[in-house]
Each structure stands twice: as C-alpha cells, then as structure tokens.
C-alpha cells in the first residue's frame, strides 16, 4: 500500500457513510486494496454489515410482525426503514421505536391495518423488558383499606407496566403467532395490559373500560375518579377483574391513601 495524501484521496466520514448507505454512490476513491487498486467489493463488507446487523435487530424486536409479513418481506421493509431511520443511539435494545409509525404510513401496507398496532405491542414488550425494577406492594394491603376509603386512594405503577389500546384484535393476533393452540383472532377492538411479574413481560387482554381506568390512574386520578372515567368509556367496566390483573402482574408499587 503506497501512501498518497493528495486531497482527492481524503475520505471523510460523511462521504463514507453516504456511500455505505446508498449502493448507487461510488465507493470513495481514497479506499484501496493492498495493491493500490480501488476497494471495490471490499467496501461492500461495511454496507453489508450495517444493513444486516440493523435488519437483524428489527427482526429480533418484532417477531410477530415478521411472521405476519414473512421474513423476506420484513427484511425488505427493514432495509427501507434502516435507511430512513438509522439508530440515534448505540442502545440497539431500543432500536425501532419509530417502526410502528413507519408501518402506519406505508401505503403498501394499508391493507394490513392492524400491523402498526401489533408492532406497537411488541415495542412496548421490549420497553417493559428493560424497564427499571420496582418493589410491588403486598396484595393484602388493599384489603386493609375500607371500601369507601379505597375509592379515594391513588396508586403508583411499576415502570414496566404498559397499556396499549387498539381498534384491532392485537392481543389475539399476538397470541396466535406466539403460542401453540391459541384461538384464531376474531374481529374487534382489544386493549392490552403488559405486566412484568418478574423478568418476562406478559401481555394480557384487558376487560372493556380497563385501559381507560388504568390510564386515568396513571394520570393521578383516585380509584373512584378513574372508575367514573372507565364507566364513561364502557358500559360494563369490571373493576375487580382489572384490579386483579394489576395485582397478579406485580404492577402496583404504592397506595396513596387520603389523609
């Protein structure tokens, strides 16, 4: 390799990345092989490494979306996404936060209306997996509060708890693709609660009104105030079933009783 420091041979990182992310751009001329010939195919190693590693990260993050689309189609979609939205941080565990919105805006995917919300569910599962640890309350602590005081109590949740509302049966779709013998999805809106009892995020179907109730609670409303919100959202809101899901999922970290 002969050194040739003429300005035309200087390769800055802007030129390197432009050519790396767009194969139609010629490889910078300052990149060579050992005999001073143009780097050619050698530069493709970087093009390939970046595309493959980011595509793999997306396939790993969105396994159900990948199944729904087929791996081949998902790889094609990932190739477009990673060029439009390269990671903005080295934390690959969070790469793809914009992927659900990206799917929603893809005209070619508009016939799969549910796909963006399924992606959102998978994205929230990942966030729950990496969320901060928190100590749950003893479920019996609720029993020691008189019913009239309970309605005036506020609660705090673990950072791992997530709620997703969808006009699509996203819970059934998720389960059908992840679990053996799961029933076929039926049309209809579904709200999903994600809990992390210990280390593994678990999605569960919320009763009607449950998402509105939990969202009101996370917004700082009392259990009673949130109950009103839930009743406006749905006719048959089932408070005790929803509360049991929260307790079983170790989602409550504190009860704030009325002074």
């Amino acid at each position, binding site marked *: 390799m002969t050194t040739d420091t003429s300005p035309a041979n200087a390769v800055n990182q*802007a030129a*390197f990345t432009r050519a790396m992310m767009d194969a139609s751009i010629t490889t910078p*001329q300052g990149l060579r*092989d*050992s005999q001073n010939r143009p780097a*050619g195919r050698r530069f493709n*190693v970087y093009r390939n490494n970046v595309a493959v590693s980011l595509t793999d990260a997306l396939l790993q993050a969105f396994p159900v979306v990948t199944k729904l689309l087929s791996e081949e189609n998902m790889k094609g979609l990932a190739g477009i996404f990673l060029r439009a939205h390269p990671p903005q941080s*080295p934390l690959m565990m969070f790469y793809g936060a914009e992927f659900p919105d990206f799917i929603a805006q893809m005209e070619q995917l508009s016939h799969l209306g549910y796909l963006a919300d399924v992606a959102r569910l998978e994205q929230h599962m990942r966030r729950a997996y990496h969320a901060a640890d928190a100590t749950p309350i003893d479920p019996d602590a609720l029993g020691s509060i008189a019913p009239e005081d309970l309605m005036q109590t506020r609660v705090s949740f673990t*950072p791992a708890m997530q709620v997703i509302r969808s006009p699509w049966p996203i819970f059934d779709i998720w389960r059908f693709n992840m679990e053996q013998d799961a029933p076929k999805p039926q049309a209809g809106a579904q709200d999903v609660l994600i809990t992390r009892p210990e280390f593994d995020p678990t999605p569960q179907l919320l009763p009607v009104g449950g998402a509105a109730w939990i969202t009101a609670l996370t917004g700082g409303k009392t259990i009673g105030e949130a109950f009103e919100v839930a009743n406006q959202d749905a006719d048959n809101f089932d408070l005790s079933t929803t509360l049991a899901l929260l307790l079983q999922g170790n989602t409550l970290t504190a009860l704030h009783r009325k002074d």
Partner: protein
Amino acid sequence: MLDKSTFTHLPQTPGVGYKPQHFNDIISDPGSVGWLEVHAENYMGDGGRPLAQLRHLAEEFPMSVHGVGLSIGGEGPLDGDHLARLKHLVDWLNPASFSEHLAWSTHDSAFYNDLLPLPYTDATLARVCAHINQVQDLLGRKMLLENPSSYLAFAESTWSEPEFLNEVARRTGCGLLLDVNNVFVSATNLDFSPQGYIDAYPLDLVGEIHLGGHDEDHDDHGKPLLIDSHGRAVVDPVWALLDYTLERSGPLPLLVEWDNDVPDWPTLEREAARAASALDRVLVEVAK
C-alpha cells in the same frame, strides 16, 4: 516492565464473551472459564433480567466491560449521553477492565452498529487521543484500545497500524487489547505478515488478547477476503498466531468471542479450554 495493573485487573486465564443463554451453565460449572466479558451497550437499560444477571455474575467472576458504541474515532464529539451511561455502568460494576475499539460508528447523530475503519493520519491520531483522554478522565481509569479487522486501506494513511496504536498508548497512557484474529484477518486482506505485525506491536502494553472466528469471502480479483464475523470456532492459523504472540508477551488474559450463531456452552467452553492449554504452554516456558 510496565505495571499492567494501571489498565487491567483481569486474571491471566481464559474468559469468554458472555451470552445470556449460557447463564445457568456458567453458574453451575464454568470449566476453564475464569472471567467474563460483556458488551457495555447491552447493559444500559434501566433494569430487568440483563442487569440482574450481570449483578449475579459480577459476584462470582472478574468482569470486563467491552464497549462497541463509543465511536472513539468519530470526527464529531463523543456522545455525551452515551458517556454518561457508560460512566454509570462502570461506576456501578467496577469491572476489572474497560476496553473499546480503534474505530468509529456514529456520524451526524446516526449510529451504524458496525466498527468502521480509520485512516492512520496525524489528524486521526490527535482526535483519537483527545477522545481517549476524555473517556479516561471521565471514568477515572485507563482503558484498553483494540486493533480492528481491516477489509481495505486508506491511500492517505501515513502510519502503520502497530505504530499508530503504540503512539496512541504512549500519548494517552491507555493499554492495548490485541485481537489476534483481527491481525490474521487484516494480514490476509491487506497482504502483510501477521507475525511481522506482532513483532512490530508493543506487546508490553497489551492488557488482554481476543480470539474469534471469521468468515471467508473474496474480493473483485478473486483474492481471499476474510470477514470478522465472530460466528464460528477460532481457526488453527489464529491459534498458531496466539502461540507466537504469547511466546513473546508471556501469559495474558485471553478472551474467546463468539457473538453470532452462538454455540451451546460445552462447545464454547472447549474453545476456552484450548486457550487455557496455550497459556499453560507459556507458563511452562516461563518456569524453565
């Protein structure tokens, strides 16, 4: 002889790159494995299983934190948020070693998740040294810098890689992480002698050695093009290059990396056992 405890406290035994699927095997019987290395970026979440496992492992093994996302060679400034996360992790874990790469991966806020190559010029040298000083000042410790796998060369380079690394270490006080597979890959790809590279390398500054597997491709002219994939066993010529290195350096902490198509634990442990016997051969030589 330089006191290597300024930049590493790893034992002179084999270690492996930690993969979560091996957690139970490692806890029940680590075999020849005396220490573990983790990629810093995989432990920068807020909580959950990754950090719980790391806490557990650190109680039983010396740990090495190996960054893959700092972009030490980047033309732009280092990412302040990422530095803060790194400091948080290193302060909490207090690992036996922290290392990063002579490479860049971030440009204009985009992170490309690959170790991208640098021209070896005075401008690169000044920038890499400034970034290493910044990292070492922030962490309050010396780091190790790893030699890359090269697939191509820069016409503008005025330094050889061993000379460049030596100069970085001399200016910043950092130690070096010598990846002998990377040496073998680069030597094949760029037509130089891997033994000649080792002869020119400042072995007294090495705090850790990496071993890994590579893939084989070819360039436009039909010449072999090796790719550092970490997806298979270490090949015999790389084991031979390890022996050549250890005969000159004496025993060092040795790490087996296997990051893709991760094998079962017995297969990975066998690689570590092979590294252990390479170390034993040097120890016998030292004792003679």
